């Protein structure tokens, strides 16, 4: 049986991940961005088991600055690939705390995402890892890694946020 403290930690983290998913599913991208620390990275590797974002290409490897550009782009009236914005359901599951020792908590989860845009529905699956940091404003995301199961496939352009 889990200790009471563990139950509390799990509950807090699960609620945080659900909130992140809810913000994305409701198009609240500014609030979503506010969940990230100033030194955050958001990473979707290109290759399975990719070790490094700096020596191999990535589907996305955004620092805070590029993440802000990405979110702002959705707000422009001629963001062609993002208008209409995809409608999504982010289903977060299998939440597991991997490591609590350091400054950040490492959390593993799975993501099933249903995306609809312009007469087409796409289904995504991903293994996700968050590095969550406790700050004065509460939990914040210091790093997020999304390993898409089809990252090495021939893929149509991706405009949804995982």
């Amino acid at each position, binding site marked *: 049986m889990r200790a009471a403290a563990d139950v509390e930690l799990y509950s807090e983290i699960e609620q945080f991940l659900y909130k992140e998913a809810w913000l994305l599913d409701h198009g609240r991208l500014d609030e979503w961005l506010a969940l990230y620390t*100033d*030194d955050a990275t958001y990473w*979707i590797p*290109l*290759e399975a088991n*990719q070790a490094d974002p*700096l*020596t*191999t*290409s*990535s*589907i*996305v*490897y*955004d*620092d*805070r*600055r*590029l993440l*802000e*550009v*990405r979110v*702002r*782009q959705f*707000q*422009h009236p*001629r*963001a*062609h*690939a*993002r208008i209409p914005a995809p409608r999504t359901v982010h289903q977060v599951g299998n939440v597991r705390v991997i490591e609590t020792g350091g400054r950040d908590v490492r959390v593993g989860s799975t993501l099933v995402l249903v995306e609809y845009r312009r007469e087409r529905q796409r289904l995504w699956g991903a293994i996700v890892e968050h590095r969550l940091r406790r700050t004065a404003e509460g939990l914040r995301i210091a790093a997020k890694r999304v390993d898409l199961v089809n990252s*090495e*496939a*021939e*893929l*149509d*352009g*991706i*405009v949804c946020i995982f």
Partner: protein
Amino acid sequence: MPRWSSVTQTELQYAFVNVQSIKGLVQADRVHRAVYSDPALFELELDRIFGRAWLILGHESQVHRPGDFFTTRLGREPVIVARHTDGSVRILVNRCAHRGARVCEAAAGSTAEFVCAYHGWTYGTDGGLVGLPLRGGYTRPAAESVGGGLTRVPRVDAYRGFLFASLAEHGPTLAEFLGPLRASFDDFVERAPEGEVEVAGGVFKHVYQGNWKLVLENHNDTVHPAFVHASSIWAARQGTTADGAYSEIGVRQMLQNGAPWEVWENTGLWVSGHGHSWMADYHDDSRLVAALEHPAFADYRAALERRLGREGTVRVLGELRWNSIVCPNCSFMSQFRQLRIVHPIAVDRTVVRAYSFRLKGAPERMFRDTLAFSNVVNGTASPVLTDDLEVYERTQQGLAARGSAWVFLGRGHGGDQPDRDGTVRGGTGTSEIHIRNQFAAWLEYMTAES
């Protein structure tokens, strides 16, 4: 020897596709929408363009040692590119000589032989049949019955390490085919302190639901960035709460897409025979390369000077080429070490593979910049590329409309200027000369009988 592929069936089915009707599709400043939307024309393109031209496959560094291989497509033909034990590069059709199964499933690797999963027919890295079960079941050696083994592509050649092949037995040499565009490959390689480049950092593979020509037309289209990329230009201009060395090169490129019209008008745009084109006098390193004021760039420059001397280095770094298009399946950026290979899948479906290259002998930081640039420009979720893909798809959908037959390519028509080495330069950098030139080559391929 039979022709590589035959469109006889298609031609029977679509008897209206003949030389005269094809000639009517291309005029001096416009083309008929059918060239983008007609499935019968697409099949004919595979035969007459992709079946004749030299097609780029990749780079020798992808098959560095004997036994190294990778799989790709030559046009739509699945092939294995392998380094044989004698050191030569062989291009083999990825189809068992026995019953037709694909013999190699891996994207890349190293092997002594390819073994078919179905009945164990085994081939060397030169495609030769080296083993099969139950030999006694054949009245004469099986290899004799199947032409020796895996089908070999008739012509293979390389220029400065870039691998090409042609499905045609005869035709211009690779050097003749590339013509003055060779200088763009020279630029690519000369920028390396050791005079060599290598593929590194993985391969992007993106798809769009549109014709293969759309991507080639777009890369040297200097009017599109202001419109297609308006949102990423705007987003990059807003300023951000953070900065960082990693994202600098990507943000600068998004901003550069918003350059004023005079920059685009003054950009050089050249075309040459066989449909090739290149854009130059556009970027210089001070506009874009984040490392320019970084010690790594000084180290890079010093390393280049050791090979080329001071003047040679100034000359090489002063070559300001942006996209170079090798018609019909390649677009590359020598200055930014990106190469894209176009795979035509169907009349309205295209795959593009994008590769990054490392300059041998350059500081590692240069390669990190290359990848940071590639993620923002060529990444499947790139803020830039996704808008291009969206517009290709909208174009393909629009061209399905029967109400209007013609696609207008008249910008700069009549202003083309003959230039050195048989090239022609657009009167301005915003000319559509490169598209008109591609269609001139298209017409030549499509109407030549052999």
